[in-house]
């Protein structure tokens, strides 16, 4: 019964996606839509055959920006949140500053980043980092604070060390929150990397989109969007898989 249910849900999800492709195909074919406005699904796939577009290289470039910036944000974001929970004074000093800095639209920094660092994979990684760093810090700080006071009473009567409280109660308790931040950030990281490429770069899927825009190769632009989406889906999937592995079902935040 349960197995059948999930099977049905998966097949329905596949069907809805296929239906969208079918609707796209019919719309283009029956509506006689010009190719430069909306390419057909086949034309989109055919765009992959153009060797000049160097798909593989561009996928790897964008992938490196997304994953690199993201991993950096998770490591530094969680690390800073941990420091905050250990040193309250540091949090009180730095948190308001972070909140203010977060109000800066990261995209607006793009031209500056190019002036400071030239363009390339590194600065675009920085853009992805900047955009997904804050949600991770925020959710982790919140998760580390969420421990029930009575639970702390219980372990305090046992004269537990601060380290024990942290490793046995605070950190595992914060994991669901950390993952909820990581899921939000996974989506933001993709946007960050692509905006970076739009503003200045010499490779990547976003860069490719700007190149083919000139020749009105809409099919290639479509393909690029699909590949960017797949990269984002891959990152999200990895995070989801890690969450399944590390967080008990009941504790997950949906």
């Amino acid at each position, binding site marked *: 019964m349960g197995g059948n249910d999930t099977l049905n849900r998966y097949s329905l999800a596949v069907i809805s996606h296929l239906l969208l492709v079918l609707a796209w195909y019919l719309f283009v074919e029956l509506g006689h839509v010009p190719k430069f406005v909306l390419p057909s699904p086949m034309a989109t796939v055919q765009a992959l055959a153009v060797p000049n577009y160097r798909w593989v290289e561009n996928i790897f470039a964008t992938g490196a920006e997304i994953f690199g910036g993201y991993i950096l944000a998770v490591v530094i974001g969680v690390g800073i949140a941990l420091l905050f929970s250990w040193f309250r004074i540091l949090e009180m000093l730095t948190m308001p500053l972070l909140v203010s800095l977060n109000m800066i639209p990261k995209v607006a920094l793009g031209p500056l980043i190019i002036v400071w660092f030239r363009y390339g994979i590194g600065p675009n990684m920085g853009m992805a980092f900047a955009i997904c760093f804050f949600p991770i810090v925020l959710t982790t700080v919140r998760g580390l604070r969420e421990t*029930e006071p*009575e*639970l702390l*009473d*219980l*372990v*305090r*009567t*046992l*004269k*537990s060390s601060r380290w*024990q409280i942290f490793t*046995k*109660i605070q950190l*595992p*308790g914060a*994991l669901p929150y950390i993952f909820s931040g990581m899921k939000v950030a996974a989506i933001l990281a993709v946007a960050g990397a692509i905006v970076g490429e739009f503003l200045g770069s010499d490779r990547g899927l976003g860069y490719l989109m700007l190149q083919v825009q000139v020749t009105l190769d809409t099919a290639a632009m479509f393909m690029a969007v699909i590949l960017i989406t797949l990269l984002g889906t891959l990152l999200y999937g990895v995070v989801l898989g890690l969450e399944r592995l590390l*967080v*008990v*079902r*009941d*504790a997950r935040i949906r």
Partner: protein
Amino acid sequence: MGEPFIHLADVRKIYRGRGGDFLAVSEVTFDVDAGELVSLVGPSGCGKTTLLKILAGLHSHEGGEVRIGSATQPFDPACDIGMVFQQPLLLKWRRIIDNVLLPAEILGLPTRASRARARDLLQLVGLNGAEDKFPYELSGGMQQRAAIARALIHDPRLILMDEPFGALDALTREKMNLELLRIWQEARKTIVFVTHGITEAVFLGTRVVVLTAGPARMADNFRVELPQPRTLDVRTSEKFGEYSRCIYRLLGME
């Protein structure tokens, strides 16, 4: 009789706050022999939880004397106190047996012996077969049983319970009352049991301490001379009614 296990004399606690001082506990004087089950009963704000925290060593007290243990049998708060709260406060990411083992881990007790003891305790509280389940797989009453097993794992001499069955439905609560009496008799512990249920206080207690609110002070403290082991028949006895009425009167409800 020798020295009492717990000796409280004119204990008093004041919370100092911005809105002025607040008398949380006063005029509390009573002795408890080892192996007794003492009910602390009273309305909200009478200081029963505060008193429990003073006994647990989590709160200081301003006046009076608090002594637990004796010269011949010294009391070590770190390993001689087990606590049970209104919420089970089980760690969601740990299996039941690992939840029970938490205090043993914090105290650094030998792992294998503790595991064996945890299994025995789960048997004692009626949770055989639930060892490898996660908390969300158990009902509220079952979770509270696990919390009781956790309070017993390090073989403490004193168990402090703060309205442990307050969040359960009425029927489960009745059942847990009987279970607690059985566990108390088998484990041979001294239990201090905070409740605002008058019949619960009389039914469970070998001694009842009545606390009143506004101002918070102890109204009375008396032994409950009802036959042991207690059965549900006790509740319909004339003496049971007298004890209950006496508490109602002390709380100004008659």
